């Protein structure tokens, strides 16, 4: 029998133990386990690698803990700009979107670019229009709101910096103004 395998990540950076409560750490472990096992199940049932990576990333995009989809960080303007890409190792086909707003699952839009357009990368409003044409789900701005991400944004704005998703700790004694 041929091997099947899947690996996932949920971002990298300065993940300070002191700031990650036991409860939150458990939540991260559970979310990662659920996502990787969802993808593995697809493979175990004979599903394609392309389907497995799309569905697994969708699961992570729907989880508020990770900086993608629903849990995306705030831009300077207080919005959410989402990027995604997908590539098939068998065909060399690829699809990507950048700077799209209110798309629930940007990875599915990226896959639609790969499968239903002659292009590789679509950006901004044009990519959103394409998303409406192919029928991907959009959500209101409130869907992407998270209090922790909001505080990260306020802290980054206060020091006029940009931060990696896991490298903007809110220190307990930090005055946010």
């Amino acid at each position, binding site marked *: 029998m041929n091997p099947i395998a899947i690996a996932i990540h949920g971002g990298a950076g300065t993940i300070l133990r002191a700031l990650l409560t036991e409860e939150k750490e458990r939540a991260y472990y559970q979310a*990662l386990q659920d996502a990787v*096992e969802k993808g593995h199940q697809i493979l175990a049932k004979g599903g394609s690698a392309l389907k497995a990576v*799309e569905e697994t990333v969708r699961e992570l995009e729907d989880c508020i803990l990770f900086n993608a989809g629903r849990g995306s960080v705030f831009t300077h303007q207080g919005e959410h700009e989402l990027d995604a890409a997908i590539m098939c190792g068998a065909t060399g086909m690829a699809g990507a979107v950048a700077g799209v707003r209110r798309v629930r699952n940007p990875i599915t839009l990226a896959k639609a670019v790969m499968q239903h357009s002659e292009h590789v990368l679509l950006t901004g409003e044009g990519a959103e229009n394409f998303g409406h044409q192919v029928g991907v789900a959009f959500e209101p701005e409130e869907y992407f709101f998270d209090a922790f991400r909001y505080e990260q944004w306020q802290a980054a704005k206060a020091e006029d910096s940009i931060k990696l998703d896991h490298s903007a700790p809110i220190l307990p004694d930090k005055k946010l103004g």
Partner: protein
Amino acid sequence: TVGAVALDAAGNLAAATSTGGMTNKKFNRVGDTPIIGAGTYANNATCAVSCTGHGEYFMRAVVAYDVSCLVEYKGLTITEACLYVVQEKLKKQGGEGGLIALNTKGEIALTFNSEGMYRASKRNDEPTYVGIYE
């Protein structure tokens, strides 16, 4: 940023990456995630790669494709290729982050030079692996 790489029973690889970018970013900044070859790449002949971290460095180093090239042209294993790219090349340039990679033998590399990377993997019927810190 989140990402996945997978190998199916037919021997095909795929890679996917999705991100909300960087907190407080301006000017419609785009990182490596949607740039094929920088943050996301898949080739059945070599490996599938998904990256996470400081995107500008990953773009300059064309990280995902670089890993694939080291496997294809230099004959490195994916572990050797990932270690070289993330721990040597990227680190020397100041790039923080990591990547996940997988080949058609089912070999997995989860490599990062930051304090942690949220990660998980599962191969065949082996137990699920989940990790956060180094």
